[in-house]
């Protein structure tokens, strides 16, 4: 028979865990609201930037010099995978699904004889990947998302990627991140940013409708100058997009996970309370029987 005191301690401990998880859920919910707004506000900019770049590059005459950051190099030997995860856990499958996708890609690329490097944005990605791919991880950036994603953060990383590319430290760069759909669902998204693959499906469709002979743009100041500014800018925009999406997904995933945890704790408390009451009753009954049979024996 379970000990009454142990049960009491157990119930108490589950109850305090439940308090923590429900507080975390509340915090995540309020952060989610803001993050969701940020995502929705940033999507138009990202979409238009992608469309503009697509149409502009499409309008360039055949054989025009395009920066390698956009068009890619002839060799595709070294792949850089940027894994966007959270710094903290307790958010369900959020980090795990990014990590799983990164693992899969690394194995696939290695079996094709390519060199793979990993840049982790977020501590959890590194923690999960370093066991298996310690040699591939070139660096980890932490603390990218403190309540809000700042555009400057993305600019900084983009500048770093651009200079690494210039030094030929990688040829192809792919982002792996969670795309925010709703608080319940996040999609692991893989997006190649160097060389830039023109757009996600929905933006692609918008670019295609123009079709036919492309409108020739008047360019001010000049093609090179615009490309010089536009291409690094686009890199920063794509990173910013990934970071905001990932941050909103993280909050959504955490909210859902903590909601489940709170509910599970509630069920556990109910079950334990039932056992506790039964046990208590059994103890009382036993004592009564003892007293009565003692009295009868007299």
């Amino acid at each position: 028979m379970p000990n009454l005191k142990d049960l009491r301690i157990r119930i108490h401990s589950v109850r305090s865990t439940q308090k923590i998880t429900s507080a975390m859920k509340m915090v995540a919910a309020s952060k989610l609201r803001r993050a969701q707004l940020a995502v929705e506000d940033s999507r138009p900019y990202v979409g238009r930037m992608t469309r503009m770049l697509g149409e502009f590059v499409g309008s360039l005459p055949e054989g025009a010099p395009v920066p390698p950051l956009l068009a890619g190099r002839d060799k595709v030997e070294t792949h850089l995978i940027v894994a966007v995860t959270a710094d903290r856990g307790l958010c369900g499958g959020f980090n795990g699904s990014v990590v799983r996708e990164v693992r899969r890609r690394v194995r696939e690329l290695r079996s094709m004889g390519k060199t793979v490097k990993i840049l982790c944005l977020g501590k959890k990605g590194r923690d999960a990947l370093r066991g298996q791919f310690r040699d591939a991880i070139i660096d980890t950036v932490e603390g990218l998302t403190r309540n809000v994603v700042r555009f400057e953060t993305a600019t900084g990383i983009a500048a770093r990627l651009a200079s690494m590319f210039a030094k030929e430290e990688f040829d192809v760069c792919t982002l792996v991140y969670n795309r925010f759909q709703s608080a319940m669902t996040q999609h692991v998204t893989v997006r190649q940013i160097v060389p830039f693959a023109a757009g996600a499906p929905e933006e692609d469709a918008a670019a295609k409708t123009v079709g036919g002979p492309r409108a020739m743009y008047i360019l001010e100041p000049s093609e090179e100058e615009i490309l010089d500014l536009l291409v690094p800018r686009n890199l920063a925009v794509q990173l910013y997009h990934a970071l905001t999406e990932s941050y909103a997904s993280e909050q959504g995933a955490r909210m859902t996970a903590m909601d489940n945890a709170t509910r599970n704790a509630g069920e556990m408390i109910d079950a334990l309370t039932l056992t506790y009451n039964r046990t208590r009753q059994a103890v009382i009954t036993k004592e009564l029987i003892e007293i009565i049979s003692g009295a009868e024996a007299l």
Partner: protein
Amino acid sequence: MAGRVQFELVTPERVLAAEEADLVVVPGGDGNFGVLPGHAPLLSTLRPGVVDIYEGDKITSRIFVAGGFAEVAEDRFTVLADEAQAVEDIDAAAAAERLNAAREALTRAQGGDEDTAAAEADLAVAEALAAAAGTH
């Protein structure tokens, strides 16, 4: 086709303006230019300055941009700004403070071997912001 310009001004943080206008004047990289309905396709960089949106021949709103890109295609006119805010919302004191900070940063950058180009760009933005603040 002719009619009005579908004007949009977006920053990474939000859509600041989405409206129809008769004329929009923006600070292009090679000098200010105005966009009327039926403008030829154009792609331009922007320097820090003020975008003026006209309704008839009156300016209905003025928006400060810190740089970015402008794209004209058919009757659509899109400005992708790095940073933007309505001129009437600019806090003159904050703008002056930012200008001073940018000047100091540039002096520091010139002293060491840091990136002076970035500091100069910051200063240009701060100067344009302070100038815009003075006009309202």
